[in-house]
């Protein structure tokens, strides 16, 4: 027996027949990891609102996913998503966007949503560059890399996103690369189920822009790089800083339970309503 279409296509809009990404782009692998997580959890797309910003990664849910999708302005998806979650607390609200979107122009929203512990699941696709606009240096670009905006190599240090968001107060934080799609799916499932701010950093290949800048070129060569240079967090904790230079630490940083903002608001509203009812009776 052979099937006529990919079974995960039941979660995508019928009229969208292809993905928007370049050949070999890791964004599609992340997209599949998200849909597999939802499928394995047995959730309904109607229970989700997907919010994205601007960039190649922001095209993952919109227009592809057959769900409510909100494609917002550059850097602002977490701000929109916070509003959606507070207004519709029963929805699973997932933000999907890029490293430039969520850590450069949108960096403050990211750390403050983690600090406030709003119940969002953020899948941050980190390809180390501004892919969509032609390969400019991002806050995630490795030091020394030559890009079109750093012709002598970038002199800046890059953000280490997962531990930064962990330090900001998130309830769940993980990082995997597109060489680890199964682990990524598992962490996305945990992120969706977590009552609190959850970040899954998905280190991904941009063969076109990053491939050109790094001279790694093809998708397969970048995946080989991920394979050879990923170190699990438990192993990394026992390693010296020099040995970790150029390595990608993967795994789960945080998985905790703590007071969550939507819940606190709901509770406060209930309490105030009760109090005002009491006053009316007097």
């Amino acid at each position, binding site marked *: 027996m052979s*099937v006529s279409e990919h079974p995960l296509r039941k979660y995508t809009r019928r009229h969208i027949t292809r993905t928007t990404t370049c050949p070999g782009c890791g964004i599609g692998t992340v997209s599949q990891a998200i849909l597999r997580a939802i499928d394995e959890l047995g959730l309904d797309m109607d229970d989700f609102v997907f919010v994205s910003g601007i960039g190649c990664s922001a095209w993952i849910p919109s227009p592809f996913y057959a769900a409510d999708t909100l494609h917002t302005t550059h850097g602002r998806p977490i701000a929109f998503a916070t509003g959606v979650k507070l207004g519709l607390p029963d929805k699973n609200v997932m933000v999907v966007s890029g490293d430039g979107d969520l850590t450069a122009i949108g960096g403050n929203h990211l750390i403050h949503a983690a600090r406030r512990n709003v119940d969002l699941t953020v899948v941050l696709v980190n390809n180390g560059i501004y892919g969509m606009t032609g390969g400019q240096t991002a806050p995630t670009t490795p030091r020394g890399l030559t890009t079109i905006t750093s012709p002598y190599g970038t002199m800046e240090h890059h953000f280490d996103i997962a531990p930064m968001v962990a330090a900001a107060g998130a309830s769940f934080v993980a990082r995997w690369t597109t060489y680890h799609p199964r682990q990524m799916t598992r962490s996305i499932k945990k992120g969706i189920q977590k009552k609190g701010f959850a970040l899954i950093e998905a280190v991904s290949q941009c063969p076109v822009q990053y491939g050109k800048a790094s001279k790694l070129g093809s998708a397969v060569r970048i995946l080989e790089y991920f394979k050879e240079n990923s170190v699990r967090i438990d192993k990394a904790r026992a390693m010296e800083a020099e040995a970790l230079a150029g390595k990608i630490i993967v795994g789960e940083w945080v998985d905790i339970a703590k007071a969550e903002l939507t819940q606190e608001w709901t509770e406060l509203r209930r309490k105030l309503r009760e109090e005002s009812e009491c006053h009316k009776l007097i």
Partner: protein
Amino acid sequence: MSKVNIFRQSCKGVDDCGICKFVCPQDLFQACQEMNAAGYFPPEIKDESQCTGCRNCMVYCPDFAIWVEKTDDQPAEEDEDKNAG
């Protein structure tokens, strides 16, 4: 034996992408000779009887172009942590 379904029209080409070929432990993928409607050469399977049903090609393909159906007597999907670095 597993059935490896390739949705030719979704694929963006073994030459430009080729991720399925890279992650197949049995090295079963090769570019076919026939272009799809978008101008790419999707893969074909050299010998399906050699497929272990590991589903790597399916979970890594960025374009939803592969689905592997497994038979009951096959081992479970590849260990999650095997590639974890």
